């Protein structure tokens, strides 16, 4: 590990050399490399995660460019996972960066999550998040949900069987079938930064506080403490 690279970060008393060393031993699986995922990967790699696998089956579209600082017009048509691997690997060669061009499904998710210390959510739909949540609980891998809509972002770190799970906060909520989700361009980077913080905090053993809700337009920043639902079919006591 290059000492100089992280010097300013290791001066942070909550983090320190111990935190840096621990972070460098961790492996993150990032599912979805769009607005949220590209920004989260960028930060995790810069901060010195040990290794990261970025999984995305999609290519870069012109409509992606307003909400990420990683992709450029030259990347249009290329696979997100490949571009992120190539660009972010050059940011920090101490980090092992892998890009996988694959759609995450019920059939392949178990093999994709092998050896993960944390799952970072860069997806854009509820059904896939519910699948990630189920597998997170099953394999006892923490994960960090993040989502954006218009000017609102949410983040929640989920520790299997310790905190409320994603199903605990989405039960009874009908899934919206929206073709194009409206998103303010600056929002994913803001929410990804919070998601990155939560990811690093749980990797270093800090307990999450709950569901963070940030409405940038109305300048509301809230933490909603939610207890585990003992009757939750996913994380409840069976």
């Amino acid at each position, binding site marked *: 590990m290059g000492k100089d690279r992280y010097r300013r970060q290791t001066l942070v008393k909550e983090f320190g050399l111990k935190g840096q060393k621990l972070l460098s031993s961790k492996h993150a699986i990032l599912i979805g490399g769009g607005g949220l995922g590209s920004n989260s990967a960028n930060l995790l790699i810069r901060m010195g995660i040990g290794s990261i696998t970025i999984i995305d089956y999609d290519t870069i579209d012109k409509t992606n460019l307003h909400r990420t600082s990683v992709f450029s017009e030259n990347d249009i048509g290329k696979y997100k996972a490949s571009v992120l691997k190539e660009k972010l690997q050059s940011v920090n060669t101490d980090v092992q960066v892998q890009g996988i061009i694959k759609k995450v499904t019920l059939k392949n998710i178990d093999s994709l999550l092998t050896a993960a210390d944390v799952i970072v959510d860069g997806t854009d739909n509820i059904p896939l998040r519910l699948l990630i949540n189920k597998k997170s609980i099953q394999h006892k891998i923490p994960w960090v949900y993040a*989502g954006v809509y218009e000017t609102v972002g949410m983040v929640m770190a989920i520790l299997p069987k310790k905190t409320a799970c994603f199903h605990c906060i989405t039960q009874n909520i009908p899934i919206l079938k929206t073709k194009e989700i409206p998103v303010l361009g600056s929002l994913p980077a803001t929410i990804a930064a919070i998601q990155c913080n939560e990811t690093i905090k749980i990797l270093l053993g800090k307990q999450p506080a709950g569901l963070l809700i940030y409405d940038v337009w109305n300048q509301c920043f809230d933490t909603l403490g939610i207890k585990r639902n003992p009757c939750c079919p996913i994380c409840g006591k069976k």
Partner: protein
Amino acid sequence: MKILVQVFGRYKDITGKETLQLYITDGNTLQDVINAFVKKYPSIQNDKNRMMVTKNKMLSSFDTTVTKDDEITLSPPVVSGG
């Protein structure tokens, strides 16, 4: 029945408050709390079937019964974009 409700996210902006009192005249469920909230603030109508509602810090189904002593929160729906 008078219910004290804590609101989060843009609901704070819409209501201008963090905590508000709602008067439930019909029924005693969370659905009745939501109905009273939407009636008072009609701009929230679109969230009516999707908002996050907790009773005593636990996300609860809309048919859950409430009493005046319960701690109720109302938050905008979970967001899913990426």
